[in-house]
């Protein structure tokens, strides 16, 4: 009987536990805490955080429980991540909930979304310099796009073994937008610049909004066909929203479908962070590069906005450049809050949504470009 108890004990998590599992469980609990108590991207951090708990329960290998075991349930769910299925579904939902009016009203702000993508390519160089292979470096660089689904999609295609750290880094930094961006914004702009009021955007007609996703899709996918899965779904979702007659489909895409995809993606990405697989030197480097990438993307947007002001008759508030990273709508919200701290009558949210959504398009194009360049 003692032997039975001993055998059972040896199969429990207490016996199999590794210090790395404990670290990841603590990280998972911090994620859950940040999501619930601090309201930092709760829809992402809570599933990922709980996924970390799930993935770091020490298990007896061979029982078909772990996410990396071929016959486990989690492995099947993880299939949607490794094969890049969930990100396009999430993009479908994002498209169905995004209003591109401000972008249509002031297309010039789209350039800010392009400028912020410089962070991706600078981080790519940084990752190469730190010894990563080109495909890994490309996957790490995309963290600077501040777009979780895009980062996961590209990593699944180029460096599937890095999905865990890259996804966690991407979502962590997205959640930390309110912490990371404001100091950079203040550092790179003067008070006078932050006080700039934006002029009222023009009214955009429904027909323009309907034509927009079709044009975006055709132009961008002809230019970078590898962006097809992400941009295709984004534009399709947006067309469903704007077409009115397909409202029922749009409602499903922006509610049930995106929620299901987010739950499955969050929990499986979290579960993929098993301590023994996740806590490596590479992961530490990825986290450092991710932070760098995010910072560079924010700075690129801000500096480009200031550059544009050299030529624009009607100056734009350079804070909008920080919204070029595609963490929708968090970075736009941060821009608004920072602007309002200087002048409570300055409402930048609506204007910041333009570079913000163009950042989504820009990072999807960047992902497509990197993918095709790495083939």
């Amino acid at each position, binding site marked *: 009987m003692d032997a039975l108890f001993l055998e059972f004990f040896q199969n429990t998590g207490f016996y199999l536990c590794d210090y790395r599992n404990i670290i990841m469980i603590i990280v998972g609990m911090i994620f859950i805490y940040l999501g619930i108590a601090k309201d930092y991207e709760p829809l992402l951090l809570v599933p990922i955080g709980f996924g970390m708990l799930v993935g770091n329960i020490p298990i007896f290998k061979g029982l078909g429980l772990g996410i990396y075991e071929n016959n486990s349930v989690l492995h099947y769910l993880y299939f949607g991540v490794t094969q890049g299925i969930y990100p396009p579904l999430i993009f479908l939902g994002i498209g169905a909930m995004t209003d591109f009016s401000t*972008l*249509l009203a002031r*297309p*010039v702000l*789209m*350039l800010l*979304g*392009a*400028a912020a*993508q*410089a962070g*991706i*390519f*600078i981080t*790519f*160089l940084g990752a*190469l*310099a*730190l*010894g*990563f*292979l*080109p495909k*890994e*470096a490309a996957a790490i660089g995309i963290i600077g796009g501040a777009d979780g689904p895009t980062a996961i999609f590209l990593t699944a295609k180029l460096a599937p*073994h890095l999905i865990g750290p890259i996804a966690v880094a991407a979502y962590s930094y997205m959640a930390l937008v309110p912490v990371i961006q404001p100091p950079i914004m203040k550092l790179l702009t003067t008070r006078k610049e932050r006080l700039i009021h934006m*002029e009222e955007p*023009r*009214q*955009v*007609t429904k*027909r*323009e909004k309907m*034509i*927009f996703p079709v*044009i*975006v899709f055709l*132009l*961008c996918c002809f*230019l*970078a066909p590898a962006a097809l899965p992400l941009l295709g779904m984004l534009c399709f979702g947006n067309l469903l929203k704007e077409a009115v007659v397909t409202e029922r489909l749009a409602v499903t895409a922006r509610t049930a479908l995106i929620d299901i995809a987010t739950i499955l993606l969050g929990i499986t990405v979290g579960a993929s962070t098993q301590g023994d697989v996740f806590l490596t030197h*590479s992961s530490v480097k990825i986290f450092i590069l991710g932070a760098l990438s995010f910072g560079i993307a924010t700075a690129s947007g801000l500096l480009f906005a200031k550059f544009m002001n050299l030529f624009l008759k*009607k100056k734009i508030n350079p804070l909008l450049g920080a919204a070029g990273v595609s963490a929708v709508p968090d970075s736009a919200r941060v821009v608004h809050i920072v602007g309002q701290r200087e002048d409570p009558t300055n409402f930048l949210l609506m204007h910041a949504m333009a570079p913000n959504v*163009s950042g989504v*398009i*820009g990072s999807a*194009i*960047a992902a497509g*470009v*990197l993918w095709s*360049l790495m083939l």
Partner: protein
Amino acid sequence: MNGVDAASVLYGLEAINANNGWAISVVGITIVFTGLVALSVLISQIHKLVALYDNPGKIKKLFVSRSESVARAGTPKAHLDLTEAQKQVCRQYNLLAQTMDDVISLPKLLRMAELSGLNDPHANMNLLIKSGILCADEQGYFRWDEDIFIRTIS
């Protein structure tokens, strides 16, 4: 770094050069920029395409000879520099126009301006037409051109 012999891993500029990093980055950011610049140019024209769709007559106009179009006596679109008082008038008429349909009946707008007690409604309506804010469609009605309005009053 997986599966790569640690001794063969390159670092720093050497790694970037060996993996063609500079070229990939430059090409990458160039494509992203080109794509978004082209997109912004294209979407800045969408409202004009929509206006053409709403006004098929305008397409026809593109193909008629210049002399004909001069003789056509349409509403001039030249950008006028207005005084502050004139800009205020434009804003007042904008409010009136907002109460009307997309297509505006000029006599009705004139009547509403008179009823609202606006000064010099005839001359001011002429100002709106001259500035291109009110432009004729092919059906005998007029449209409020929001772009010109914003450009004119700004």
